[in-house]
C-alpha cells in the first residue's frame, strides 16, 4: 500500500516532531491540564462500576468473536441494511471510498456537505478529495470547526482542539464569524458556534458521518456524540452518507449494551454521553430519504491477518490510552504525524500504512503499560508495540544498507560482547578507561558519537571503578577466608 493513500500526513520522525512540540510551552500547559482533567473524570466514573473488569472482558470477547467471523457478520450487516432501505457500498482503498462519496454527492448536485466528526473520513482524507471536486465539507463538531477555521490538524481523536485555549479560540471566531465583541467565555463561544452552524444545518441537503458501531443482526448503525451536531446531520438532510471501517461491526443487538457502558466512561469520563443516535436503514417520514453506507477496508484486512496485530482492530476509539500516556501528555498529538495519535496511533498507523512508512511510531512509547490497563477492550498495546518494533528491525535487515547502519553494527557487537564472560569483562575494563573524559560526578551527560543521542534526553551512569562482578568475586574470597 502506498503511504499517500492513507493516514499519514508525514511530518518527520516522531522524535523530531516531539522535540518541536516540547519547545512550545503553551502547548505543554494546555495538554497537561487537559489530560489531567480528563483522567480524573474517567477514574471517577470507572470506579463506580464494580464489575468494570467483567465488562472489559465482555468487550474483548465480543470483539475477538467479531473478528474471527467478520465475513459472516459483514454479509449479515449488508443484507439487513439493504432490507431496511439503505444502500451498501464497498471500498478496499481510501481512493475508492472517496470516489464513491464524491459520486453520491455529485448526484445530488449539492456543492456543500455538513459533516459529523469522523476519524475514518480523516483517515481517507475525504475533505481534501471533495475539495478537488469543488465540494466544500463543513465540519460541525465544535472542535473540528475550530481546527478547520485555524487550518490546522487535529491533535486528539476526541478533543481535536485540546491544544487550543479559550483566547485562541475567541480570536479565530472573531475573525471567521465577524463577531468583534465576542468574549472568551466558553458559554459565549459555544453560542457563537450554535448560531453559525444552525444556518448550515437548516440548508445543506447532504451529510456525511462515521459510525461508532453497526449491528450485524439488525442492520442498525450507531453514532455517539455530545453536542447534537450529530443528530442534526443524521436527521435534517435528505441524503446521509456514512463511511465506516469494517471492524466497527458488532454481532448482536445486546452487544451494543456492553459497549455503551464501556465507551462513554472511558472516553469523556461520563456515565453516558449526551446523545446517541441509532438508525436502521431509512425511516419513512423521519430523517434522510436516502441512506448510504461505505464499508471501508483500507489496510484493515492486513491487520486482521496478523495474529498479534489483530487486536488493534478491537479499538473503539475511546482515547483513554491517549489521555493516560506520559509521552502523549508531553508531546501532544501533532508529533505523531498521524490521524491516530498516542498509543493507539503508534500501533494502528504503522499497521495500516506499513511499518516501512511509519517506522518511528512503534518507538513513541516507553512501554510503561498504562494504556493496556485503561483500554476498555483490553488491547495489549505494549505487546503490539514490541511486535511492530521487531518488524521494523527485520525490515531494515532485508536491505543490505540496513546491516551497515550504526545501530545494527552496534547491536551485532553487543551480541558478541554479551555472548561470553571474558569479552564482557574485557569490555567493562575498556569502557572504564574510555569513559573518563566524559564523566562528571558519576554520570555521563554528553556522550560521544552515537551515545550522544541517548544522553541528549537522559544522563547515563558511568561504569563504576569496581564492577559488580569484581565485588562479587572479592566478596566470595572474603567469605571463603571466614570459613
Amino acid at each position: 500500500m502506498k503511504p499517500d493513500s492513507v493516514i499519514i500526513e508525514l511530518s518527520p520522525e516522531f522524535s523530531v516532531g516531539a522535540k518541536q512540540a516540547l519547545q512550545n510551552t503553551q502547548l505543554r500547559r494546555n495538554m497537561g491540564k487537559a489530560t489531567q482533567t480528563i483522567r480524573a473524570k474517567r477514574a471517577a466514573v470507572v470506579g463506580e462500576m464494580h464489575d468494570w473488569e467483567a465488562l472489559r472482558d465482555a468487550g474483548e470477547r465480543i470483539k475477538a468473536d467479531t473478528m474471527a467471523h467478520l465475513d459472516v457478520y459483514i454479509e449479515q450487516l449488508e443484507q439487513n441494511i439493504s432490507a431496511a432501505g439503505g444502500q451498501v457500498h464497498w471500498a478496499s482503498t481510501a481512493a475508492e471510498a472517496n470516489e464513491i462519496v464524491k459520486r453520491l454527492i455529485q448526484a445530488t448536485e449539492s456543492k456543500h456537505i455538513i459533516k459529523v466528526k469522523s476519524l475514518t473520513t480523516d483517515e481517507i482524507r475525504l475533505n481534501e478529495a471533495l475539495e478537488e471536486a469543488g465540494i466544500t465539507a463543513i465540519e460541525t463538531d465544535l472542535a473540528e470547526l475550530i481546527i478547520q477555521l485555524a487550518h490546522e490538524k487535529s491533535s486528539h481523536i476526541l478533543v481535536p482542539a485540546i491544544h487550543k485555549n479559550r483566547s485562541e479560540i475567541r480570536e479565530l471566531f472573531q475573525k471567521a464569524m465577524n463577531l468583534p465583541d465576542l468574549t472568551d467565555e466558553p458559554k459565549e463561544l459555544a453560542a457563537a458556534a450554535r448560531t453559525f452552524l444552525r444556518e448550515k444545518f437548516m440548508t445543506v441537503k447532504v451529510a456525511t458521518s462515521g459510525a461508532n458501531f453497526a449491528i450485524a443482526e439488525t442492520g442498525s448503525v450507531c453514532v455517539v456524540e455530545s453536542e447534537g451536531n450529530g443528530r442534526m446531520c443524521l436527521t435534517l438532510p435528505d441524503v446521509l452518507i456514512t463511511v465506516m471501517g469494517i471492524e466497527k461491526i458488532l454481532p448482536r443487538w445486546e452487544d451494543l449494551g456492553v459497549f455503551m457502558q464501556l465507551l462513554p466512561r472511558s472516553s469523556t469520563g461520563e456515565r453516558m454521553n449526551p446523545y446517541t443516535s441509532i438508525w436502521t436503514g431509512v425511516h419513512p417520514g423521519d430523517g434522510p430519504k436516502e441512506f448510504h453506507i461505505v464499508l471501508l477496508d483500507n489496510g484493515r484486512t492486513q491487520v486482521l491477518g496478523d495474529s498479534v496485530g489483530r487486536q488493534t482492530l478491537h479499538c473503539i476509539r475511546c482515547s483513554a490510552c491517549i489521555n493516560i500516556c506520559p509521552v502523549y501528555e508531553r508531546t501532544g498529538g501533532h508529533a505523531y504525524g498521524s490521524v491516530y495519535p498516542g498509543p493507539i496511533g503508534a500501533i494502528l498507523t504503522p499497521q495500516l500504512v506499513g511499518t516501512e512508512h511509519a517506522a518511528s511510531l512503534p518507538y513513541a512509547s516507553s512501554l510503561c503499560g498504562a494504556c493496556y490497563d485503561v483500554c476498555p477492550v483490553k488491547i495489549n498495546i505494549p505487546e503490539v508495540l514490541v511486535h511492530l518494533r521487531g518488524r521494523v528491525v527485520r525490515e531494515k535487515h532485508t536491505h543490505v544498507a540496513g546491516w551497515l547502519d550504526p545501530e545494527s553494527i552496534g547491536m551485532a557487537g553487543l551480541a558478541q560482547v554479551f555472548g561470553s564472560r571474558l569479552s564482557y569483562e574485557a569490555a567493562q575494563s575498556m569502557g572504564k578507561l574510555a569513559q573518563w573524559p566524559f564523566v562528571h560526578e558519576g554520570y555521563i551527560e554528553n556522550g560521544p558519537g552515537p551515545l550522544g543521542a541517548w544522553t541528549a534526553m537522559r544522563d547515563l551512569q558511568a561504569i563504576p571503578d569496581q564492577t559488580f562482578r569484581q565485588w562479587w568475586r572479592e566478596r566470595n574470597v572474603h567469605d571463603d577466608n571466614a570459613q
Partner: protein
Amino acid sequence: MTTTRNRVLADIRKAITQGQRPDHQTHSFDVGGIVPQALSAEALVDMFAERVTEYKAWVGFCRMAGLSAAIAARLALAGSRYVIPADFPAAYLPQQEFVRDEQLSHDDIAAVDGVISLSALGIAQTGTIVLDAGVGQGRRVLTLLPDYHLCVVFAGTIVLTVPEAFTRLRASITERRAPLTFVSGPSATSDIELNRVEGVHGPRRLEVLIVDAPGH
C-alpha cells in the same frame, strides 16, 4: 462494485483463516453494574432523578392525575408556542393551544419555543432517556430543533442498567425498525479547555417530568 465487494470479502476470509478461527461464541451479558434486586422501586426513581439532575436538567415529579397541571406549570415558564407529536395523548395536555406536528417544515419546528414529548424508557444508572418514535414521541427532528424539551417519563418504564434497556429496546428495532435516540442531559460540549458547556446544538434546556404511573 460487486468486484470490490468480492475482493474485500476475499481479503477478509484470507486474513481470518490465517489466524485461529474459534467456534462461534454466544456471549453472556450479565454485566449490568449494580445488582438489580438491591434497589426498591422508589430508590430506582430517585437514582434516575438524581443522575438526570447531575447533567443540569430540571427534574420534577407528579401523579397521573396531576400531569396536565404539571405540564401547564412548566410551560408557563418557558414561552408560549409549543409543538407536540401528532399522536400526543390529548388527556395529558392542559387547556391551551399547541402546534401539532402534521407535516411541519423544519423551519416551522425551529420557530417554536419548545417541544413536549413522551419517552420509551429511562435508565437510572446513567440518567438517560431513550426515545424510540413510539406514541407521543414523534419524529426525531421534533425533539431536536426547539430550544426547550419537556420530556415525560413514566416511573414504571425506568430500568436500572444499560443492558436492561437494550433488552427492552430489542422489540422497537426488530418489530418496528424504529430510530432510537439516547438523551443524557441537554446537549453539551467539552471542547473548550474541557469545561462542560451545556447547550450547543440540541435543546439547551431539558426538563424531565417523572409521572408516578406504570406507563401511558
